[in-house]
């Protein structure tokens, strides 16, 4: 049986408990006085009934000479002597039926109507009831303690007598014992401090008298100093928990209030928790580096692959053909230039990747490779790691030979890529809702050409066009159309 006490409230110290008790008594006394005042217990009444001094004449002399006065069950205007209504009498006193007097409005204003909300003990579990019992005991509310204990016994009895229950008498008694123990634990001296010294100061005698006592003191210190603090992580029954506060039980054992994954809290002894072994700085750094490369490796491979593939397949790409003059450059020189450009392209791709990684803050030493320092060493591993190229692999890194199949591959050469010529044509920036017809109108292209070419656009540029439910073809996205689509549309301009 686990000795745990779930609690949702911060336990209070003895001093705070005493203060709470005194405050409760004060409030109670204030209420009593207020009630007595309200009912005039402390009022001084000077008049015929008390003193017997005044005469009938003096009584009349004290009565008002104007306004509405009361005579028995009737009301009469004091001046005119005419009968008046009860409302007239009430109105002159500043009160109406709609606004009854605040009869209880005495000292300190209207007496607060304190509503007492009883705890829902019936729906609490045993540990929660233990906590409530502990609190009641600490403020000396014996009646409350007895009520709660009766509820506990009732709940346990219900559980024991349930048809599906397999609770034995021993189990029942164990639960009662557990409840009592939880009460004691919850009443334990609360050490809401993470400072171990404070714990030690409260746990040890001030002046050890003998050496033996001194050693006992050290042992006591060791036993009562919590090893873990608020925020530390631990495991409880396989679940990850976080320490919220520390306790020192009356039995001298350290207990921790922990928050479980579901957000509830429990009070457990330290020996019920499993704490992860602290990682060395090296282990932490290794983990970070591992995570970094794990995240980066796919990106790197993708980019290098694009570089390689671009170099392999971009026969008509101006980048690869840079420096080639179709009119003057010999075939052999064309191949050399293209190969050189391919090497530059791959090297540049790799360089941009490496430079980006170097700049990341996870790479404090500023370099990546060469000795494995920042590429990260895995202690204990020792494989050679050489890869054997498969035929497929070989393809990827083959020297680029035009995939001609007998077709002339010399292509018109672009000049050096005009970087300035990359501003998007605003006309091809598609706003929301624009269709092909509107686009053609905007471009001053005969709209009949849209109808004639829409199917072709859909087939050639499926990323830009789609078939609508109506069967017609529309533009599938806002923003810029692909360059291919733009070129195809531009080709329709006259």
């Amino acid at each position: 049986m686990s000795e745990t006490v779930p609690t949702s409230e911060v336990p209070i110290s003895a001093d705070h408990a005493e203060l709470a008790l005194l405050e409760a008594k004060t409030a109670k006394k204030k209420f009593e006085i207020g009630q007595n005042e309200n009912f005039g217990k402390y009022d001084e009444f000077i008049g015929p009934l008390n003193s017997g001094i005044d005469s009938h004449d003096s009584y009349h002399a004290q009565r008002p000479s104007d306004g509405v006065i009361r005579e028995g069950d009737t009301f009469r205007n004091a001046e005119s002597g005419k009968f008046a209504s009860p409302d007239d009498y009430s109105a002159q006193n500043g009160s109406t039926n709609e606004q009854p007097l605040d009869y209880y409005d005495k000292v300190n204003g209207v007496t607060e109507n304190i509503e007492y909300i009883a705890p829902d003990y019936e729906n609490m579990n045993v540990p929660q009831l233990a906590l409530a019992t502990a609190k009641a005991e600490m403020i000396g509310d014996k009646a409350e303690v007895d009520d709660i204990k009766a509820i506990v016994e009732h709940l346990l009895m219900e559980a024991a007598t349930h048809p599906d229950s397999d609770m034995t008498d021993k189990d029942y008694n164990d639960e009662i014992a557990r409840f009592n123990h939880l009460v004691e634990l919850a009443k334990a001296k609360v050490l809401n401090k993470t400072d171990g010294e404070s714990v030690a100061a409260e746990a040890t005698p001030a002046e050890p008298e003998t050496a033996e006592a001194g050693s006992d003191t050290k042992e006591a210190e060791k036993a009562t100093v919590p090893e873990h603090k608020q925020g530390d992580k631990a495991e409880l029954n396989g679940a990850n928990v976080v320490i919220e506060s520390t306790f020192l039980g009356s039995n001298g054992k350290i207990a921790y209030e922990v928050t479980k994954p579901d957000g509830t809290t429990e009070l457990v002894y330290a020996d019920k928790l499993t704490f992860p072994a602290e990682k060395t700085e090296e282990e932490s750094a290794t983990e970070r580096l591992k995570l970094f490369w794990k995240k980066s490796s796919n990106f790197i491979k993708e980019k290098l692959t694009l570089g390689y593939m671009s170099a392999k397949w971009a026969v008509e790409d101006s980048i690869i053909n840079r420096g080639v003059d179709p009119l003057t450059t010999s075939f052999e020189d064309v191949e050399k230039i293209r190969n050189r450009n391919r090497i530059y392209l791959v090297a540049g791709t790799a360089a941009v990747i490496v430079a980006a990684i170097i700049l990341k803050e996870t790479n404090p030493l500023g370099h990546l490779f060469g000795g494995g320092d920042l590429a990260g060493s895995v202690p204990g591993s020792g494989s050679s790691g050489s890869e054997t190229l498969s035929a497929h692999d070989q393809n990827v890194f083959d020297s680029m030979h035009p995939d001609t199949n007998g077709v002339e591959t010399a292509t018109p050469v672009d000049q050096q890529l005009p970087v300035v010529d990359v501003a998007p044509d605003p006309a091809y920036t598609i706003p929301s809702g624009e269709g092909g017809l509107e686009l053609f109108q905007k471009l001053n292209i005969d709209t009949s050409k849209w109808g004639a070419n829409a199917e072709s656009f859909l087939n050639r540029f499926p990323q830009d066009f789609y078939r609508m439910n109506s069967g017609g073809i529309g533009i599938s996205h806002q923003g810029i159309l692909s360059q291919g689509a733009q070129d195809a549309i531009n080709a329709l301009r006259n």
Partner: protein
Amino acid sequence: MDDLIIELGLEALSPEQQQRIVDELNMRVGEAIMSGLNEDQVSEYEAIINGNQEVITSWLAANDPGYADTIAYQQLAEGFESDPDKVPADKAYAAMAWIEKNNPNLGETVAGIKAEIKANLDQTV
């Protein structure tokens, strides 16, 4: 979105335009770092990216003998079987390690060319 696209401010461009500019960046960087090297070095790098296993293995043995124990290599190697492009880890590792080894001022070079590209784009806009 690719960090490089964002860094260069290319978000508003079409994918084809973005690729053209990235290719331009890579090409310029490649020209800058390779043009300062001798033919033997260029040939060595060409052999690496062409998948010459002998060159790859010997270069790594001479310059980074512990590469197989590195986290970088092991992460590059992880998932090879499931990688449709089947990029060998030692080639990818060597392709990057060689670049860094032979270009001490790599970061500055790349940053400078990126700035040039961005300046050209700003002028256009």
